[in-house]
């Protein structure tokens, strides 16, 4: 919900706080409520309710689509950001972050002060957070979700703190929760009082991460529950802080590129994707991305790509911070130029692809890909040159035109003959008289992907008076029951 508010407020279309807003996610029987705003919560809407039902009760509801994948991505980034407090942080399920603050709290003035600091920082980011601190990971995540806000639980009173929480806080499966409710065990305190042996016999078939007893042991610190924090990805970033705001980034790019390349050279890496960001004095930022066909750490090459991208960048009233970041890096060993002075052709071509794609757009530069198909227009496909590799062309035994028209153009038949191509036809307002022809070559529709009712084609290579050679086809035959009279098309031109 917070992420949605941030996105929408960037577009300046955030509705008033009094308007109830819900985010809908697809459910098994139509969309369900995935998240809701404070106003919607005040109306009594519950998470997981069907959107159509809620809309029937509250017709003025503002419904938006949720983006769970984007939320997870944001949460991953926030988890890395949270390493400002402690070195071990990891995303917890789909809605939480676990931090191991052992030995780090005193740096922020104690546990309570640290929690206050976290709450402030999250609010500054525009995110609402429920925080809790406990000696074990399980207790902390239960308290954060079900306990009082900002709870700090000491080492000795874990059992007392978690006792009033419902059993669902253990993140059990729905059936297990229902079973415990039937047994009358509604809170963790009740669960703790029951003799273990009886419960163990009942739940011995459940896996460890679903077994209420194991989970309870972990929460109370009787079983080990280590935190496996992912390593922080290496960032390749060069910064230039300027004393005064400037308008023109070009004089500072040299230093940035050299700095970045020196960093990458130390780790034998090369950049595949670069981002130049300028941070303006009015708080806005602008960025430009550049992609490369081969990893590179040559400052001159990177500079050349970047300078071509600077045209539309808006410096506003100036900027005082520039960063150049390699978003994607690949291993690149040291390269030895041939001693005979020859240049490496593959590297030259890769550099050319980079420059062309940076200026013209990656979709405009392509290699051909080949598909086995009888239909001429399906044989050749395109793959962007930065994304794919060149493939050798297949060997065709049939005669094919060097130029094809996509889509084929209809011709007007002026003088038809019963068998064979038209003796006289006109195309693009010029009439042609055919002299020789070869064919027909019949190409049937591909029933496994064409729509039913697609007509077959009879291709002819026709030479007209004066010497030009065309590739004509007749779509369908008379009386095939798939439309009226067959029509004639010109599909290509032979050399």
């Amino acid at each position, binding site marked *: 919900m917070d992420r949605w508010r941030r996105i929408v407020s960037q577009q300046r279309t955030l509705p008033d706080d009094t308007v109830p807003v819900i985010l809908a996610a697809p459910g098994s029987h139509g969309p369900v409520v995935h998240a809701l705003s404070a106003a919607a919560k005040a109306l009594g809407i519950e998470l997981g309710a069907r959107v159509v039902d809620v809309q029937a009760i509250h017709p003025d509801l503002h419904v938006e689509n949720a983006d769970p994948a984007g939320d997870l991505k944001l949460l991953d980034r926030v988890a890395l950001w949270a390493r400002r407090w402690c070195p071990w942080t990891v995303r917890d399920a789909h809605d939480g972050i676990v931090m191991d603050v052992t030995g780090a709290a005193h740096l922020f003035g104690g546990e309570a002060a640290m929690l206050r600091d976290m709450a402030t920082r999250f609010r500054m980011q525009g995110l609402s957070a429920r925080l809790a601190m406990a000696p074990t990971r399980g207790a902390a995540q239960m308290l954060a979700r079900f306990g009082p806000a900002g709870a700090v639980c000491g080492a000795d009173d874990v059992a007392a703190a978690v006792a009033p929480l419902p059993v669902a806080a253990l993140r059990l499966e729905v059936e297990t929760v229902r079973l415990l409710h039937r047994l009358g065990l509604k809170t963790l305190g009740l669960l703790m009082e029951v003799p273990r042996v009886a419960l163990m016999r009942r739940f011995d078939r459940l896996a460890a991460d679903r077994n209420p007893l194991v989970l309870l042991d972990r929460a109370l610190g009787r079983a080990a529950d280590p935190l496996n924090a992912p390593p922080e990805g290496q960032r390749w970033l060069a910064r230039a802080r300027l004393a005064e705001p400037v308008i023109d980034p070009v004089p500072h790019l040299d230093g940035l590129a050299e700095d970045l390349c020196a960093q990458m050279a130390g780790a034998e890496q090369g950049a595949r994707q670069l981002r130049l960001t300028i941070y303006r004095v009015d708080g806005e930022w602008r960025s430009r991305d550049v992609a490369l066909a081969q990893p590179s750490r040559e400052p001159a090459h990177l500079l050349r790509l970047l300078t071509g991208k600077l045209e539309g960048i808006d410096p506003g009233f100036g900027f005082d911070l520039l960063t150049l970041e390699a978003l994607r890096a690949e291993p690149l060993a040291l390269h030895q130029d041939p001693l005979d002075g020859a240049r490496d052709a593959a590297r030259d071509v890769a550099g050319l692809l980079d420059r062309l794609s940076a200026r*013209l757009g990656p979709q*405009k530069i392509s290699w051909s890909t080949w598909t086995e198909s009888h239909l001429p227009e399906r044989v050749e496909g395109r793959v962007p040159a930065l994304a794919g590799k060149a493939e050798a062309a297949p060997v065709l035994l049939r005669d094919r035109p060097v130029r094809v028209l*996509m889509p084929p153009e209809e011709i007007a038949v002026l003088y038809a003959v019963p068998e064979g191509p038209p003796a006289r036809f006109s195309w693009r307002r010029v009439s042609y008289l055919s002299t020789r022809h070869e064919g027909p070559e019949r190409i049937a529709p591909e029933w496994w992907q064409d729509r039913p009712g697609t007509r077959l084609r009879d291709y002819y290579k026709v030479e007209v008076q004066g010497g030009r050679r065309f590739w004509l086809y007749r779509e369908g035959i008379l009386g095939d029951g798939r439309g009226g009279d067959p029509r004639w098309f010109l599909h290509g031109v032979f050399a």
Partner: protein
Amino acid sequence: MVTDSSFGQVISLSSKRLVQDVPRPGGGDAVLRDVISDAPFDAAITGFVLSCLPGSAAPVMWVSDRMSQRENGRLYGPALAAFGFKGKVLRVEVSHPRDVLWAMEEGAGCAGLAAVVGEIHGAPEVLSFTATKRLALRAEASGVPIWLIRTGEDGALSAARERWRLRSLPSAAHPYDPQAPGAPLWEAELFRARGRAPGVWRAGYDAGAAHSEDRLSLVSRSGDGSVAPDRQPATDVAG
């Protein structure tokens, strides 16, 4: 001695000059050549250029603007092997002729390419004499041959070292079917060239060429012709 090949080519064994006069556009010397066509939508140009492209494995960059794709159709990959071209084609499809010229200049500076082919339809302002001059100098400096295919206009200024005009001719006889068109033939007119006399030839693709640079065969326009009937010396008749 007659130098215009339209009168038939007399090759005398004492002088090699006429033999040398037959141009070899596929010879691989890195210059800018431009090709224009006599008629609109004539694919003779494409066949001619393909027969002249080098046979190396290095990729060929083929740049075209939107108008030439719409007017002349798109280059069809599976047909390229029919002209002895075995390399790979790097397609650059842009909308404006300005970008075509820019991409060709970039490509000409790249030694990893076998050749650069650019297609421009019509006579846009950016394709000025200066632009072609830049391309010509670029090609000679870098060693990459450049072909400029210009359609839809005739006779604009160009600084190309060789300027060709192409036209389709009725094809050769089909070896098995008299009703079918055979191997393609074109009329190739070299109407402006540096250091060489202009001329008109009948061009075609030579599938049996020993070297890949000689795939284009240029025959003088008169061709072999029919053999003249034997004439009896007049003295014999009188005698």
